[in-house]
């Protein structure tokens, strides 16, 4: 009981009060406590991710093994999981060449480089045909497979250059181009994310169609304001009311001016009021949690 109830509450209290105090006390050790505490949380969350991954695998594998309903989706989930894991931890890609010496026939080497990199001979000459400088010059092209890199290396060596094949450093493969991870990010993750976000356009249309009904006065005001903002925010609104001179008394009836006014005044006022309420709610909940008044998140009554 003591371990389960009082120690967690004590930890919450001490850490909560210290974090609050650190905002008001700029003197050390409080000044850096906020940063350290946030970083500790990030470290814990990062390790906790392993738990989540194992849980995901466990549930999806169970569905797959027992051929439960829609097991095919579980197969897709598991395959995607292991493929990304492989590209993140095992297969890096990102092979590149380092030109150590152009050799006795720089023209031939430059020709090969300009052909492979698809740049002008003159530019290739300026960049690569210089005397040997210590570690060599990195050739600005990366290959997914080592074989492709070796193929180009052989062509350069035939032309007389001294070349070395290297691989992108561990960790760097997550950020650089022409690695398997970058491929999966660019060709799978990016289009899928953009697609999900694009669904919002369709859902906004169906939600508006269903929900914007003139039931009472407030709903009518909401509807009219919504229409003004929807049309006024886009060039169509400018086009519709362009005939009203900007300098005339009635310029406020121009849709783009009207929508801006609605956005900046009644809308911002309402948003601010809700923000104050939410802020107070957060303060109240946080105080209840820190002071141990709210214990249900520990499973207590």
């Amino acid at each position, binding site marked *: 009981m003591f371990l389960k109830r009082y120690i967690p509450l004590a930890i919450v209290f001490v850490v909560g009060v210290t974090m*609050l105090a650190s905002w008001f006390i700029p003197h050390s050790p409080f000044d850096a406590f906020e940063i350290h505490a946030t970083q500790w949380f990030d470290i814990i969350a990062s390790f906790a991710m392993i738990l989540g991954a194992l849980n995901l695998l466990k549930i999806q594998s169970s569905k797959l093994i027992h051929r439960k309903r829609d097991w095919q989706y579980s197969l897709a989930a598991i395959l995607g999981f292991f493929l990304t894991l492989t590209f993140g931890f095992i297969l890096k890609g990102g092979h590149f060449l380092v030109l150590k010496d152009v050799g006795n026939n720089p023209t031939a080497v430059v020709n090969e480089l300009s052909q492979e990199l698809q740049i002008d001979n003159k530019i290739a000459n300026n960049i690569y045909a210089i005397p040997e400088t210590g570690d060599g010059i990195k050739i600005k092209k990366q290959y997914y497979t080592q074989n492709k890199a070796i193929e180009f290396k052989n062509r350069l060596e035939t032309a007389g250059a001294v070349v070395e094949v290297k691989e992108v450093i561990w960790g760097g493969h997550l950020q650089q181009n022409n690695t398997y991870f970058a491929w999966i990010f660019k060709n799978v993750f990016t289009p899928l994310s953009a697609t999900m976000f694009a669904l919002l356009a369709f859902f906004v249309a169906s*939600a508006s169609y269903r929900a914007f009904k003139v039931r009472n006065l407030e709903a009518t005001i909401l509807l009219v304001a919504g229409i003004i903002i929807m049309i006024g925010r886009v060039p169509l609104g400018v086009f519709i009311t362009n005939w009203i001179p900007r300098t005339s008394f009635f310029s406020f009836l121009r849709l783009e001016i009207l929508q801006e006014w609605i956005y900046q005044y009644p809308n911002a006022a309402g948003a601010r009021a809700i923000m104050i309420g939410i802020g107070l709610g957060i303060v109240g909940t946080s105080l209840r949690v820190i002071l141990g008044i709210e214990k249900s998140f*520990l499973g207590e009554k």
Partner: protein
Amino acid sequence: MKNRGIWLKIFLLFILIFNFAIGGEININVEVDKSDAEGQLVNMLITGIDNTTNFKVFKKLGDESQWIELKSINKLSSKIYIKNDILTSLKVVTYDDNEKIIEEAISELFITKAQWFNTSRLAKFIFLLVTSFLILFYIEKAKKKKEIYLRPIAGLKAFEEAVGRATEMGKSVLFVPGIMDLDQVETISGIIILGYVSKMTARYETDLNVPVARSIVMEAGKEIVRESYMSEGRPDQFNSDMVHYLTDDQFAYAAGVNGIMLREKPAAVFMQGKFYAESLILAETGNSIGAIQIAGTGSQAQLPFFITACDYTLIGEEFFAASAYLSQDPKLLGSIKGQDMVKAAIMIIIVVGVVFESFGAEFFKKLLG
């Protein structure tokens, strides 16, 4: 006659030396700026040269032997940030056009210290104390069995109705605790509400499905659901896979939850926590399967989407008051009352502030920091 000539030479020599001393003396003054609560700030002033002179400023910390150039200093009067709690000195060096040193000057040793209290945040500290006092005061009042009235909130009353509907239809309840981690207060509130909903599902023996986007939330959710089922005397009904992890990514999570909704067609969907752009995707999909939807969030930008697509929405403070409302615990109800008193005080301050500002009296704004 001979004596007068000697005195004249001495006098001229004195004038020469004096002029040389006045014209060539460079000086660097450093004053610790006490207005910065974090310390670290000093005001540096270089005299004896003008803006056309080439100069560089260096600093030396403590016992270090090397002077470090401060490359961003190019004005004779500058604010410089220095490490706290370490004796520091500054040096100014002037150069000719060939980068040859002409002369240099070193400041006195100084030390910057952070304050123990950031006085610029005094108003916020007082607000915190007043808020805490009011909340604790009303909690004490509520403990003395004083009845506290909370206005009925339709969304909270509908919790039991929603779970009941799912039970009657033989379908499951889907609970989405938001997409953020447990460091967000909204997620904590969502998890607390999960505790109450899981008590109802335990009581009515309804299936509960809680897909989460963060591993720590998964663990906290499992714990709270387990406790709820135990407290209802249904430990056998609890299955740790009720609360399961999907993915951290926002839209991948939305896709996963949508998939669950479309395949399993839950009769009741609770969306309680912190949401971002995926809120409308979830709410519309829930609407398309005919589920009763109760949403609650402190994410102000997502409220319009939930209000449009869901049957009930807990707006802002209502969401944070849910735990007090559902439990009817006097202590929690008292804290809500205290919060309301703070809100009333804020409203008065806003009105007073607007009146003062309208008449050009800025002291009230400055008082509040």
